[in-house]
């Protein structure tokens, strides 16, 4: 529930250099990444970031090649802000927020070539389609980073079905979904004149600008500025520096979770 009181309180804390949960401006909340929580899916991962909880599920199914990309498989990403995840999430078709979330995560994963799509080619008529579904189970801010982590982890740990004698084999001894690299994102909020990392729901509700930067070890792979406010070029440049520093922790956590 947003109100002037909470805003004043959050502002007061930020002016003092701290936050509701005692964090520093550029500090993440407690993070846990668990791959393989939904074994029916080829890949899955649950991410808890503070009280934000998201689940990514990966299904790999037979499909047809796209006309403009006849020699590779397909990737599709979608996000559901489940109505059970927060009092203000409503049942119904995906909201613009859910669509933005899925598209931003998708752009990073695609640009970083996390899924090795050419390796998903089977025949001229058949390729593998990879579906990634992002399920928000409890909302407490910063869905972008939590979902990027969940999607990357689920894909990196996914198994690869086999296609033999016109049949799909999904069980038994299977290889891994062909993937490359490792992606994470850092999302900043501008709240009461302060730039802070990993906003919780209260902070996020008062943010006037938001910037998501998705990167791998070497380069930026996707960006998205959200909300009505703006950032100065200097602020963006600082956030880029911080992202390259901070994202190492996240990628380490992903690697550790999948045993690499």
């Amino acid at each position: 529930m947003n109100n002037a009181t909470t805003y004043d309180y959050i502002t007061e804390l930020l002016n003092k250099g701290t936050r509701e949960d005692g964090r520093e401006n550029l500090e993440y909340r407690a993070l846990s990444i668990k791959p393989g929580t939904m074994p029916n899916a080829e890949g899955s991962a649950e991410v808890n970031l503070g009280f934000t909880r998201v689940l990514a599920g990966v299904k790999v199914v037979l499909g047809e090649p796209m006309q403009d990309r006849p020699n590779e498989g397909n990737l599709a990403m979608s996000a559901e802000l489940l109505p059970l995840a927060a009092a203000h999430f409503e049942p119904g078709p995906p909201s613009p927020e859910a669509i933005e979330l899925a598209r931003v995560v998708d752009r990073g994963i695609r640009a970083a070539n996390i899924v090795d799509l050419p390796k998903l080619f089977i025949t001229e008529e058949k390729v593998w389609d990879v579906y990634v579904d992002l399920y928000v189970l409890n909302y407490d801010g910063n869905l972008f980073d939590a979902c990027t982590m969940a999607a990357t982890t689920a894909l990196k740990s996914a198994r690869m079905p086999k296609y033999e004698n016109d049949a799909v084999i999904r069980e038994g001894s299977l290889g891994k979904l062909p993937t490359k690299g490792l992606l994470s994102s850092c999302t900043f909020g501008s709240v009461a004149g302060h730039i802070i990392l990993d906003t919780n729901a209260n902070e996020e509700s008062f943010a006037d600008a938001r910037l998501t930067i998705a990167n791998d070890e070497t380069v930026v792979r996707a960006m998205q500025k959200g909300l009505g406010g703006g950032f100065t070029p200097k602020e963006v440049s600082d956030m880029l520096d911080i992202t390259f520093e901070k994202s190492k922790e996240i990628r380490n956590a992903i690697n550790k979770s999948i045993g690499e």
Partner: protein
Amino acid sequence: MITMASSQEKPQLIVDGKRLDGRDAGDLRPISIQTNVVKNAVGSAYIEWGNNKIIAAVYGPKEALPKHTANPERAVIKCRYAMSPFSSLEDHGRTGPNRRATEISKVTREVFENVVMLEKFPGSEIDIYVEVLQADGGTRAAGVTAAAVAMATSGIPMTDLPFGVSIGKIGETIVVDLNKIEDNYSDADVPMVISPRQDKILLLQMDGNMTKDNIKEAIDLAKKAGETISKLQSDALRAPYLEVMEKYKGEKSSYDEKQAD
């Protein structure tokens, strides 16, 4: 394990009296229930029932919106049951509720209209969400079982704690708790929800072929399985309280505290 794609004919579901996963006809799959899993919800529960993984949450009571849905005499229940697109081993499903899910949402809502004390909250609405994250047969029964626990943790008063279970027929044998493969090839499937204190059947569906006697036997088996399921619900609800009580068992309780409430 059965490879579905390569065998079109019906697999042998019971061999030497044992089912494919080693169960006897009357056995339930392993079930575990956890409470308070969705921090934002008023009440919530997570159930693993065999390979089913289902999360249930309750919000409200709150003002019924849109206003024309409100009933001035009592609360209205709104229910959404939905299955994740990654819930099954084989396909990638569609997102959001389809016709099947809409029907299950309705019969689930009707279960809770029976046991929730709606008259306490005129003009308001209570939302029940059942999200099937992974499915392996019997999701509506498992979903109601979890939703009942979620409702109890919300503090919304209920006259009873219902449980669900699905009974099936394989050949001539009536079996408890069909899993997905059994469900696909069974001769009949009867999902049920029972209110154990009232001894009333609150959800009953059936398809396939069954004799009158088969159905009577199915109801008896459901009630028997319900003893186990009810116990698991009860244990899950009590566990967090007993845990904290156990921790401080030795400590003196002052008069002051006993009277606090």
